[in-house]
């Protein structure tokens, strides 16, 4: 049996920041493997290094030591342009949505498609499909300020899905919305994982939220302390 390349793999990943003159070991040798179709929750209190890990997995930052492989590619060997290309295969969902305020819902979903160089018609079609998938077909002409928190996060998820990413990387996706909407969002995320086979890596400090995932990776002080399969 041939094993498929893991979507994300880290090997003894270390990251040290210099805060003032004091070195801070944010990651102290993390080994993580995420396979295709997984839904992994990385759980930990603030300061546990989970955000630093997210930056490494998202190719937003480079490790001090150790390696990150995304789709089998060693991120540390890539230059600026190659990193940008790689990020297109990652769907980011942020806690604060990070939508572009001046663009409407459709414009926001079209943005990564435009960055990828798709032409206008393809972009429009794809954005409409995605907004329909997240249940915002009727709201696509609305700007972020005219949408509720839950609706904004749906737009962000639609945007993250635009370029058919290898995995969704979610940073506290329900951290800024009410619990009822949070439940709906999690329902959507689980459906995407189950029905569409989208690989999901979710970072959270919310124990309850983490239980929605197939696998929980617990972090503390820059290290993985426990991995729990929930299957």
């Amino acid at each position, binding site marked *: 049996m041939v094993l498929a390349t893991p979507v994300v793999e880290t090997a003894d990943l270390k990251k040290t920041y210099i805060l003032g003159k004091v070195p801070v070991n944010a990651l102290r040798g993390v080994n993580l493997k995420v396979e295709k179709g997984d839904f992994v929750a990385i759980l930990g209190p603030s300061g546990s290094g989970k955000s630093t890990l997210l930056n490494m997995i998202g190719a937003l*930052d480079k490790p001090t030591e150790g390696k990150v492989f995304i789709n089998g590619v060693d991120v540390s060997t890539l230059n*600026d342009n190659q990193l*940008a290309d790689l990020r297109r295969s990652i769907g980011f969902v942020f806690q604060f949505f990070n939508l572009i305020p001046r663009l409407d819902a459709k414009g926001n979903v079209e943005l*990564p498609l*435009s*960055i990828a160089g798709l032409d206008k018609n393809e972009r429009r079609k794809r954005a409409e499909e995605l907004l329909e998938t997240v249940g915002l077909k009727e709201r696509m002409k609305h700007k972020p300020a005219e949408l509720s928190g839950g609706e904004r996060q749906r737009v962000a998820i639609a*945007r993250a899905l635009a*370029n058919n990413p290898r995995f969704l990387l979610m940073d506290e996706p329900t951290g800024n919305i009410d619990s009822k909407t949070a439940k709906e969002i999690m329902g959507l995320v689980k459906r995407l994982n189950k029905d569409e086979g989208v690989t999901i890596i979710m970072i959270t400090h919310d124990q309850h939220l983490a239980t929605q995932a197939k696998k929980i990776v617990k972090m503390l002080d820059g290290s993985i302390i426990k991995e729990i399969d929930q299957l």
Partner: protein
Amino acid sequence: MKLGDVFSYAFSAIRLRKLRAGLTTLGVVIGIAAIVALLSISQGLQTTITDQLQSGFATDTLIVSPGSGGGIFSGVGGGIGSSGSDFSLVVTDTQVIDEIEGVVTSAAVIQEVGSVMSGDRTVTSLVVGVDFGVYSEIYGSTFVAESGEIPLNPDNDTVVVGKRVSDPWQNGTIVCSVDDAVEIVWANTTVRPPKNETQLVTVAAVLEEVGGLSLTGPSDSAVYIPISQAQSFFGTDECDRIVVKLASEDDSTIEAVSEAIEDAFSNQVSVTSATAVLDIISSVFSTIELFLAGIAAISLLVAGVGIMNIMIVSLMERTREIGILKALGMKSRTVLAIFISEAVIVGLLGAVFGVGLGWLLANVAARVFTGGGFAVAGEQGAVRGQFAITPVITPTVLLGALGFGIIVSVIFAIYPAWRASRLKPVEALRYE
């Protein structure tokens, strides 16, 4: 990202802050308008002056003036830039010049600033002594009588007056007309104490209006007396210049005759052609235009600094946005392109409106000048010309202004755009 999408994204960012973008653009508008207005007015002025000179010029003439190297300006107007030579031309030197091949005829000119008195009216004018017959042969189109007749063998007390001497205020108040007796007054400063020499003369003819600035040919503000009379009236045989009519206006003839005349007087004279004078004027205007454009360009540089300032502010406001774009896979060079595109849009809009505004200002200014009766002291003393300046905008100025507006905007945007492109995604996303 496609170029069209880059521009459309940049445009959406500009549209978001209309007032700020408008004010930034206004800086460019003012800079470009200043350049266009100043250049089109000075080019219009140049065209006007050149046209007026050409109308008073015969292109088949040469002007011989004493002194080497000084050119026409050492001979006329009382020796501006005179070379300091002791050499003088005398009236009979025309005989030497007439011998030269390619010369049809030549006329000596003696002139002094004086005035014409008629009753209680006095008009300042040039008193010019010429041979009427030869002079009218040389200036067949401008030394022409409007009323009366130019006598070919005049009596000593016969004069021909220019249009502005007869009708100095252009309002029908005639100081003198044909057959009137007038007094010519000349202040003789060669004696101590200076004394006014006066001569009673009769007007034989009033010249047609020459118009414009006549550097060398007939002038509207001159009174012409026979050369022999000028010699005795001014008490000298020395002439200010000799006007030469050529057989042809070819460059080769102009050059050959010029050299021959200089040789004949052992390089103690300067020979100037109409073409050379126009060249001088053109080069003077080029310098003036460069100077004016330079001043105007400073205002555009100020606008450029404004662009840079506002883009740095915008960069800080949009740091997070840049982080998002990079997280979505945008390359650094695309971020750079977006910021540069914003500057291109501001520069282009500013340049287009600036050209329009500049053109408007130039026309308003031209109207003010023209309406106000722009008086110019010409080379021949009291020449008054009424100018109608028509601003001229050449394709070079137009394209140059557009290009300059965009280039300045882009240059000042390079640094903020570069900084934006260098932002690290993880830090930009964290930026509050």
